[in-house]
């Protein structure tokens, strides 16, 4: 068995609202070439297994895993697809290397959201076809219900949620890869058109196109390949119920459990003392607050207040979504978790340029698969 696994190569393409000049394969190819060059490896000779994260309906192709190998250099190699988020893909690579059968694994995720003409209709097809779909609920409508419950249970205010948007979109101005950097005021967020009260248009991340590839290595290889390995200290993932009727609406137990699993592997008993910064899900503004509380990084009910007070700002005690998050960078569909992990790696390597955090050693990435799922994943990384 290999106990320790490191991320030794990263590459990305994008992120932009539209990318008419490239196909998804070309985006993936660009990201892969950069990741392999970064790790100093040849995919045909060195990489032993490949993983893609993708969903058929996002791609418009059934059995989409058919189209995953060529642009990664993975033809005639052990490769498989996970119908999950990018962090599920990284967790899978982590498991493969830990078996001792593999030393070098590549993980890929991408979004070509601009190709999807009917994304709201596609995501609504994730609802239970018998009990929920006949109600013709829009995806954002269900998020609005959840936001309402979260605000009710925790006493969080819409203004505090808007502060998340202001922070993340300002952070994105310092991230050259981010698609939606902007200098907005709280009022501009609150006055945006309502989608499903209390959820407004600007509380909602817009999609972007992009591709991300990462190379994972066993401890034995990692020290040969790079001076800056970023170690995976723990990976956790969990599903709650898919049924809208049976779930908790204010809390997200799946993130609580995924975090416990990752912390246990990492030997972290007091996450608030150990985790220096975090990249968490912010598909909707309130999700960042809900996630931070579920992760145990902020006490229940305090995330809104602390966000207003600057606790999660880039210069705060716990910088959150310094990359801009999904609100500032763009939501990358199945690759979203990879984008969160990418920022953690870049920060831990000290390569974040204008948005570099000082002296960070341990970071956390977390993702959620979106409405109507209760699927979350957590990764703890350290340099």
């Amino acid at each position: 068995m290999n106990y320790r696994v490191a991320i030794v190569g990263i590459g990305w393409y994008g992120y932009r609202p539209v990318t008419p000049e490239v196909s998804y394969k070309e985006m993936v190819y660009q990201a892969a070439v950069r990741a392999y060059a970064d790790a100093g490896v040849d995919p045909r000779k060195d990489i032993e297994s490949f993983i893609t994260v993708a969903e058929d309906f996002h791609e418009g192709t059934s059995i989409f895993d058919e189209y995953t190998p060529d642009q990664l250099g993975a033809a005639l190699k052990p490769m498989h697809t996970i119908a999950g988020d990018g962090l599920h893909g990284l967790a899978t690579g982590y498991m493969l290397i830990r078996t001792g059968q593999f030393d070098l694994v590549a993980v890929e995720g991408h979004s070509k959201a601009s190709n999807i003409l009917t994304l709201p209709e596609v995501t609504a097809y994730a609802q239970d076809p018998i009990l929920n779909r006949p109600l013709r609920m829009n995806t954002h409508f269900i998020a609005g219900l959840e936001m309402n419950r979260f605000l009710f249970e925790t006493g969080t205010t819409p203004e505090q949620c808007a502060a998340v948007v202001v922070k993340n979109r300002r952070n994105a101005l310092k991230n050259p890869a981010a698609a939606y950097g902007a200098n907005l005021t709280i009022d501009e967020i609150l006055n945006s058109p309502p989608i499903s009260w209390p959820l407004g248009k600007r509380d909602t991340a817009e999609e972007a196109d992009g591709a991300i590839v990462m190379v994972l290595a066993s401890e034995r290889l990692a020290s040969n390949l790079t001076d800056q390995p970023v170690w995976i200290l723990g990976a956790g993932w969990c599903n709650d119920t898919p049924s809208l009727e049976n779930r908790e609406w204010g809390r997200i137990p799946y993130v609580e459990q995924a975090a416990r699993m990752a912390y246990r592997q990492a030997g972290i008993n007091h996450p608030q003392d150990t985790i220096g910064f975090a990249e968490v899900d912010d598909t909707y503004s309130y999700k960042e607050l809900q996630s931070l509380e579920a992760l145990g990084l902020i006490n229940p009910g305090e995330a809104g207040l602390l966000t207003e007070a600057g606790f999660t700002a880039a210069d705060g005690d716990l910088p959150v979504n310094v990359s801009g998050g999904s609100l500032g960078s763009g939501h990358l569909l199945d690759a979203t978790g990879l984008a969160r992990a990418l920022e953690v790696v870049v920060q831990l390597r000290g390569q974040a340029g204008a948005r570099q955090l000082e002296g960070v050693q341990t970071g956390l990435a977390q993702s959620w698969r979106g409405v109507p799922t209760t699927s979350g994943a957590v990764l703890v990384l350290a340099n």
Partner: protein
Amino acid sequence: MGMRKVAVVGAGMTKFVRRAQETAKELTWQASRMALQSCEMTMDDIEAVCLGTAPDAFDGIHMNGEYLSDGAGAWRKPYMRSYVGGGTGVFVPIQGWYHIASGLFDVVLVVAEEKMSSYYPHAQAAFLTIFDHTTERPLKPNLLWIFALEMNRYMSTYGISKADIARVSVLHKQNAADHPCALLGEANISVEDVLNSEVLAWPVQRYDVSPVSDGAVAVVLAAEHIAKRITDKPIWIEGVGWNLDTSYWTNKDLAYPRYVEYAARMAYEMAGIKEPRKEIHIAEPYDPFDYKALHHLEGLQLAERGKAVQLYIDGTAARDGNMPVCPSGGLLGVGNPIAAAGLMKIAELFWQLRGEAGARQVPGDPRRGIAQAWGDLMQVGTVVVMGR
């Protein structure tokens, strides 16, 4: 430190039927419940769940894995869905294997489900969307059509007759007559019946093809220290292999499945197998079409190229032969609910190697078996070697 050993300790399967009355979620629940009962476990004992199901288009549900999660018992548990097209059924136990071999988990439930009948009028239409949107979809190909190309290529390369290939269908459907879950078991079928069946896309005829089916299968995997507490007869996963070839299927020779060979070599190496033809006692190659069983036996190195049909002619492949092939009845006989059909082969090896296969039992205390699945655009091979 060596690799963690992983065993199959329980298995369950629903009947494979043409139109199940149950929803896909109910099918997964039934199979999971049977698998747990077979080893006297409950969901409280399960630490993580792996799910396999092929395209979302069958059920018409986006993120179908998320929808099926509670049916498979993944309530407040780590849960992931893997897919490699038709190879998924034998991949999902590999996914379970690496969950345990990684040291993160000790007990994992592996579930595979397919409900193809929801697709109206016929599931074949869902396959229209698997082709390349620019170069292939305008030609409106379907699966029967491209596999007819491959069958033609295989027959013409090695000079194999349709009558010989039909022997595969006959043996598998006869074997399936002893399987209580089978959809198309026929004890009295003959080669003439196959050759006289309706032509679908020459040279593929109706009895050359497995049926569209609904069904689910589940198995319980456990780490060595747990497996030995649960059962006296754990069946070990000795080797796993998988391999994905290029998407450009039109650019390669279809006569030989190189990706199956690579997957098999990976599994043999892990299992320490040097001479597969002597060391494998039961083979469950993937047989959605009768020629595919031959194709795959060659890829698995269990027969010379173009010579696999001899195993059927000389009786080696029969249930009481030297190396029984698809004693379950395979996809041709039991049915082909895609992902579930692959995992059915794992369940069959589990029952055969424990001596629990009833009327289907292979004589002579078989010690080791191999299961294999295949899928995508003639592109992926997944292989598991299991032993006592």
